[in-house]
C-alpha cells in the first residue's frame, strides 16, 4: 500500500487564511525575472504539491516526497539552482492552492491541477505545460455488478469538493438524462473513507488517481473495478503566477526538455555519454556547442542537470505511475507523439 503522507486538517473556514494571504499580495515581485532572482537569493524553490495523491505527489514512509509532480519541481530546482534537493514542499488543499500561488507562498503549483480556460484566464496564474493527460472516471465495488456509468441512475456518488470533478459529473449525466446524487466532501480522505464504508455506489475522480486509490487505499483491491467511461479531459500540469514571463518560460522549457530528452533517448544514465556524443540535437539539449540556457537566463547545462536529477519524462512516468510503480498505468495518451500519444515538445533550438 502506498504510505500515508502527513495529512493536514484545516478548519472548514480555512479559505479565510487564503483570503488573508490574498490581501497581502502587494508585498510580492511582479516584474519579469523577479521570481528567479528571489529563488536564487532564497536558495530554494517553493513547490506547491498535494497533501497526498499516490503517483503524483505523496510523502513516502521516510518522509521523502515522491511522484510525477514532485519530480517536475526537482528537475526545475536542478536546472535553476544546480541542486534537485533545494525544494521546499508546501502541501496544499484543493481550495487553497490557487490563493497560495497568487499570494506568492509558492513559486510553482505542481499539484495535479487541470488546465482550464477559467483558471488560465481569470485567476492571475498561467499554466506552463501538460505533464499528464488525464480524464475523470469511476471506481465501483464489484458486488453491485455495474459495468457502465450509464447504469448509475439515482446512485449516490462520493466526490471531493474543490476540483473540476463535480461539474464534470453533472455535465455528463445531464447530457445522458440521468440523475445521480453527489455526496461532496471537503477532504480527500473523508471522501474515500465514506466510499469504502459503503456510503456510495461509486467514487469519481481522475482515472490516474482511481488506479492509485484502488491499489493503495481499498481494503481489498480485487473487490473494486474502474468503469470504462472517461467523462472529461483533464490535462494536468504545473502553473506559475501571472506577470513573470521569464519564470513561466523556465518552467515550460524544463518540462519540454524532459520530453525532448525521452524523444532523443537521453536518460539519467547515458546523459554524460550523450553530452560528448555525435548527435547535435542531444548535444544542444545537454549544453554542448550552442548555449540554449542563455535565452532562459540560465547556464548551458540546465537541461543536463534536470535529466541527471530525475531522468527523462519516460523514466519519471515509469518510476511514479507506470511499470516501475504500484499503479502500473499504461502510457496511453501520455506516450510520445511519435508513439501514439500526445506528449510533444516544441523544438529546443
Amino acid at each position, binding site marked *: 500500500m502506498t504510505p500515508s503522507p502527513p495529512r493536514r486538517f484545516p478548519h*472548514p473556514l480555512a*479559505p479565510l487564511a487564503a483570503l488573508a494571504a490574498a490581501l497581502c499580495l502587494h508585498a510580492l515581485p511582479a516584474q519579469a525575472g523577479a521570481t528567479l532572482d528571489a529563488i536564487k537569493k532564497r536558495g530554494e524553490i517553493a513547490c506547491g504539491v498535494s497533501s497526498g495523491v499516490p503517483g503524483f505527489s505523496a510523502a513516502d514512509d521516510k518522509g521523502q516526497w515522491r511522484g510525477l509532480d514532485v519530480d517536475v519541481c526537482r528537475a526545475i530546482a536542478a536546472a535553476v539552482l544546480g541542486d534537485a534537493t533545494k525544494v521546499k514542499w508546501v502541501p496544499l488543499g484543493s481550495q487553497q492552492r490557487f490563493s497560495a500561488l497568487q499570494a506568492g507562498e509558492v513559486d510553482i503549483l505542481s499539484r495535479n491541477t487541470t488546465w482550464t480556460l477559467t483558471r488560465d484566464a*481569470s*485567476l492571475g496564474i498561467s499554466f506552463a505545460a501538460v505533464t499528464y493527460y488525464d480524464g475523470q472516471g469511476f471506481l465501483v465495488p464489484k458486488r453491485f455488478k455495474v459495468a457502465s456509468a450509464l447504469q448509475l441512475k*439515482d446512485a449516490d456518488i462520493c466526490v471531493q469538493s*474543490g476540483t473540476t470533478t463535480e461539474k464534470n459529473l453533472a455535465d455528463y449525466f445531464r447530457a445522458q438524462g440521468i440523475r445521480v446524487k453527489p455526496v461532496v466532501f471537503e477532504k480527500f480522505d473523508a471522501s474515500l473513507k*465514506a466510499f469504502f*464504508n459503503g456510503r456510495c455506489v461509486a467514487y469519481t475522480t481522475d482515472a490516474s488517481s482511481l488506479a492509485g486509490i484502488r491499489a493503495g487505499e481499498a481494503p481489498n483491491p480485487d473487490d473494486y473495478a474502474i468503469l470504462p467511461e472517461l467523462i472529461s479531459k483533464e490535462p494536468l500540469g504545473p502553473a506559475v503566477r501571472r506577470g513573470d514571463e521569464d519564470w513561466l518560460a523556465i518552467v515550460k522549457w524544463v518540462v519540454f526538455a524532459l520530453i525532448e530528452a525521452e524523444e532523443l533517448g537521453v536518460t539519467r544514465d547515458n546523459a554524460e555519454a550523450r553530452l560528448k556524443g555525435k548527435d547535435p540535437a542531444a548535444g544542444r539539449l545537454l549544453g554542448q556547442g550552442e548555449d540554449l540556457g542563455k535565452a532562459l537566463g540560465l547556464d548551458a547545462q540546465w537541461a543536463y542537470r534536470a535529466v541527471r536529477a530525475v531522468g527523462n519524462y519516460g523514466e519519471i512516468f515509469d518510476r511514479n505511475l507506470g511499470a516501475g510503480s504500484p499503479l502500473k498505468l499504461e502510457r496511453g495518451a501520455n506516450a510520445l507523439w511519435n508513439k501514439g500519444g500526445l506528449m510533444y515538445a516544441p523544438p529546443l533550438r
Partner: protein
Amino acid sequence: MSAARTGRAAWLLQIALFAALAAGAWWLAGTAAEEMRARGIRSGFDFFAQPAGFWISEGVFEFDPAESYLKAFAAGLANTLRVALPAIAAALLLGTLVGIGRLARNPLLRGLCTAYVETLRNIPLLLQLFTWYYLLTAMLPPAAEAIELLPHVFLGSGGLALPWVADGGLSLPQRGGFAITGGAHLSPEYLALFIGLTGYTAAYIAESVRGGLQSVSAGQRQAAAALGLTPRQTLRLVTLPQALPMLVPPLANQSLNLLKNSSLAVAIGYPELVSIANTTLNQTGRAVECIAVVLAVYLLLCAVGIAIAHALESRLRHWERA
C-alpha cells in the same frame, strides 16, 4: 463635567471610532481590488448570475445545475437552516431536561446526566460528527439492502426514508436499484450532523440551565416547601419562571454556536452554505467574494438570532415584574 456633556463626548468618540473602522475596511477592500486587478485576477460578484453547473444532493427545494450560483447559495443557506433550526429546538429541549436532571434527588438520574454532560462536552465536536457518520454509514447495509424498520420506513447507509405527504397524497418509499425512491429522505450526512450538533450543544445548555436554576436563591425554594409545594411544583411555579430570563442570553449564545458549528458539515459531506461556497470558490476562483458572502450571511443570521433573544428576554422580564 455635566452628565449631558459626558454623554455627548461618548457619542462623538463612538462615531469617530465607527468612521475609522469603516474607512479602514474601505481602504482594505480598495487595496485588495486594485492588487487583484494588477495581477490579472478577475473579481466582482457578476458570477452569481452564471449557471452553477453542479448538483446539490439534498435540500429544501430541488436545485438544477442550470440554475445560478445565487440560487445554489440560497439552497446552501436553506440546508444550513434545515439542520440548524431543528437541532436548536432539540438541543434546547434535551439540554433543559438534562440540566434539571443534574439537580435531581435520584442519584442514578443525577449521575447519568452528569456523565452525559462531561462526556459530550469534553469530546471535540468534529470527532463526534465523524463517529456518528461512521456509525450511520459503515454499520448499516447499502441502500439497495436497507433494513425495513416499519412498513415503508427504511434505514440503510443511504439514510432514513419515511412516508411523506407529496402531491396531495401519501408518498411511500420503495426499494429502487441503487436507492430508496419516494417518500421523505434524510441522508446519513444530515442525521449525523443533526445528532452530533444536538448532543454536543445540549451538554452546554444543560450546564447553563443547572447554573440558572441554582442561582435562584435558596430562600425561594424553602418558602415554596414551607407552603407545601411538591418539588415538581416548586420547579414549575417558582424556580423555572425566575431562572428563565437569566437563561435567555446563555441559551441564545449556545443556539448561535450551534448555527455556526453547522459549518463543520463540510467534513462529512452535508451540502450546507460553506460546502456550496467551497465548490463555487473552486469553479469560479472568486475566493474573496465567496468568503465575504459566507461571512455576511453568518453575521446576518447571528444578528437576527440576537434580536430575537433580546425581544424574548425583555418579554420574560416584563412577565416577571407583572
